[in-house]
């Protein structure tokens, strides 16, 4: 904790929020929002610069993960709360959108029935209550935001009120996501059990597999990523954000100063969960499957690892971390299918040992001596 305090000024503000940061942000936005769509839609397939659907979905997926990582960074990096249950909020958002997408399949399932295939399997005659109104896109959007938000709010309220913190909090969030995973695995719960939702056909009437839809979803994801970054930046640079950092570093002192830390923690925790939910909804439309595996404790731990690799308390670090780890995963599972876990495992170990402030922190350290000289 002490090293964070020492470098706080540099770590917190420089990489993203200086003029170079804005340049970098603008440049990446240009690449993601303009160049990739053009490269995918306009360029001919045999062009060197053609970006195939594979890359679009892969980058789209990583962008979703980057949003989740930023949500994690908001509470871990800035408020010192390590959640091992963020996979739950991500999945809840995904399921919210997934229900709508399932309804959009209409009669094109294997059984040509009114109900989704898995309900026909279970001999259900009507939609259970959870599915009420899910054929409306607006309602789905509401679910995506509200369900993770409410779950997080209720859970957070009780947990923070009881002053559960540190490792204890991490463990009970893990218990929470594990319990939810078991619940969603049950076929009777009404969310497709282990298989979850897949084989989507269309969204808002557009076929989900056309390049145009895909690129639109991709661009929306990128926009939301930028929006999240700006919101995150706004929050952490405000007075509110300073109180958060103070809570992270010495909660008791903040309380003695007269702040009710419960409100601060609860707000950032709920915001983080809602952002995760949105990311989950975007994820499901692009990847095309959502199932309880997303809630497994291992997935939530990985989210924390992205943030750690990129650098905590920097927001940009979260994006970098999500990109590096997932990029490495996609590459190594192909290049060294038998040995990629070694590479990934060693990466995690070496990052925590040698780069406690992650990649962004490393860049910072590099630049600092240069400036001083």
């Amino acid at each position, binding site marked *: 904790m002490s090293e964070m305090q020492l470098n706080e000024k540099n770590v917190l503000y420089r990489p993203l929020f200086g003029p170079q940061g804005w340049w970098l942000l603008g440049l990446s936005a240009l690449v993601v929002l303009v160049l990739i769509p053009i490269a995918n839609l306009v360029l001919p397939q045999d062009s060197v610069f053609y970006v195939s659907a594979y890359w679009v979905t892969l980058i789209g997926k990583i962008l979703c993960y980057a949003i989740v990582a930023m949500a994690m960074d908001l509470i*871990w990096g800035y408020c010192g709360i390590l959640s091992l249950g963020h996979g739950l909020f991500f999945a809840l958002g995904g399921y919210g959108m997934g229900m709508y997408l399932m309804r959009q399949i209409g009669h094109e399932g294997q059984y040509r029935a009114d109900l989704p295939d898995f309900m026909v399997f279970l001999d259900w005659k009507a939609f259970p209550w959870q599915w009420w109104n899910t054929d409306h896109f607006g309602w789905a959007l509401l679910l995506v935001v509200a369900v993770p938000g409410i779950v997080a709010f209720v859970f957070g309220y009780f947990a923070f009120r009881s002053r559960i913190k540190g490792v204890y909090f991490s*463990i009970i969030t893990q218990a929470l996501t594990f319990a939810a995973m078991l619940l969603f695995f049950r076929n009777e719960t009404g969310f497709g059990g282990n298989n979850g939702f897949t084989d989507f056909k269309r969204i808002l009437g557009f076929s989900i597999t056309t390049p145009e839809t895909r690129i639109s979803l991709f661009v929306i994801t990128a926009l939301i990523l930028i929006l999240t970054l700006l919101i995150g930046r706004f929050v952490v640079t405000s007075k509110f954000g300073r109180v958060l950092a103070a809570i992270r570093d010495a909660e008791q002192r903040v309380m003695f100063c007269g702040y009710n830390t419960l409100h601060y923690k609860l707000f950032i925790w709920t915001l983080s969960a809602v952002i995760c939910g949105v990311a989950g909804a975007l994820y499901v439309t692009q990847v095309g499957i959502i199932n309880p595996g997303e809630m497994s404790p291992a997935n939530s731990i990985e989210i924390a690892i992205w943030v*750690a690799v990129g650098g905590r308390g920097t927001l940009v670090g979260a994006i970098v971390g999500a990109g590096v780890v997932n990029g490495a995963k996609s590459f190594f599972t192909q290049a060294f299918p038998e040995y990629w876990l070694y590479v990934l*495992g*060693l990466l995690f*170990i070496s990052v*925590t040992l040698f780069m406690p402030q992650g990649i962004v922190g490393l860049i910072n350290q590099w630049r600092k001596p240069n400036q001083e000289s």
Partner: protein
Amino acid sequence: MHSKLIFYIVVLLSGLLKPLPVLAFDRAAFESVVLAEGDERFKALDTLVAEADNQTPVLLKALLEGELQRAGKQIIWVHEGRNIDPLTQAPLSSELPDKEDVVVNNRLRGALESALAALKLVSTDHKTRLAAAKELVVSAEEGMKPIVKKALAKETDATIKALLESILATMELKSTEVPLRLQAVQVLGQSSNSNAKTALLAALEVESDEGVKQAIKTSLKQVETRLVWGQRLGLVFAGLSLGSILLLAALGLAITYGLMGVINMAHGELIMIGSYSTFVVQNLFRHIPAFFDWYLLFAIPVSFIVSALVGMLLERGVIRWLYGRPLETLLATWGISLVLMQTVRTFFGAQNVQVENPSFMSGGIVVMSNVVLPWNRIMIVIFAIAVLLAVGWTLTRTRLGLFVRAVTQNRAMASCVGVPTAKVDTLAFGLGSGIAGLAGCALSQIGNVGPDLGQSFIVDSFMVVVLGGVGQLAGTVYAALGLGFANKLLESWSGAVIAKIVVLVFIIMFIQKRPQGLFALKGRSVES
């Protein structure tokens, strides 16, 4: 299929009473039993047993145990590693063409077992008779009535007598006379055997007499009441067994995490290493079959040492650098767990490996007819208690334990008064890891041994430690047993999935009430 049993036993008994000329072993019948298919086999078996001589049980046993092979019409007995003719015992060439095993299916196996039991009912050895009677309780049939009556008349032992009476009553249920049926129903009402329930249920369906019907219902209730006690006992034992497994898995973590504040996500993999150590020791012992059963005795220290060494290596290499940063330890040890799992996959393959129970740990104690307490689970309960005592002793009675507790309570102060904290950290971590290894050794006796073994225990172990209260062995014990019982109780009532969810939700709620677990350390150090 047992209707013919009566016939052979009558012949046998009469053979005992008045010596008949010894019948020649019926070669044709034996060949039919071994080589024919379908009903023909069973007819031949009847004949064979009816004419049984001393050789019959030996050969039937050989067939039952899969020692017989065939090459065309020739039957081969693979006896003590040699191929011999089962009838003449003459040696046969070991290289017969198209040799294949004689297939014994469940139906034939059942028939062979009852035939052998029937042959034993007249044995002079008390134990043999008891086993035979028990066997026949399960497979009693109408046709055996006279022979059971006869055996009953001769029997002096009370236990066997009761068994035979119960067998007889089961048959009398089908009698055409109402008083006989009524009496049988009452006899069965005294039974605590689940077979009595089966018989009574079947009788209830075909019963026409109102009086008997009422009696059956009364008897059924009596039997069920007794069976329910058995089920309850089974449930309590299941809870105890699960609790002791959780305890073993969590005890190591209680030290590394509880006492030292280190979140070790690789704890599960240390358990796995313990299991694989057991596997390796077992394989070494395969070379000396005479002592195979004792491999476990050697596996215990080996799994402890291997896991402890790996743990100490991790502490020195990685965790040492991360003290005071508990949340980051979590990430580094997660990486370690990935590496360890993949290492095991590389060396041992991704499949599960076979760890065989020593013969003294197979089977179980029959407490009641519907409750069998498996030996391997009993042993694990005992083992868990032993490990617990050893850990308790180490922590409270040894110098290392003193140091560990001192460092836990106040690291800086301990260091000031001369406790070598770095060394203590390494040793304590080694101890915790070693206990995980012991857990692995125990778990290898009841479940899978594969690269993923540890993953399935890590969440549960954390729950136990957190619920029990960090740094408290007593809390760990109560939490493990409590979770074990709660899980099993709920499972019998709501199914496994819901039980697990309810338990997890309970833990979450409980932590809200008592954020420091069941037994909280009090003092300033806890707050930071």
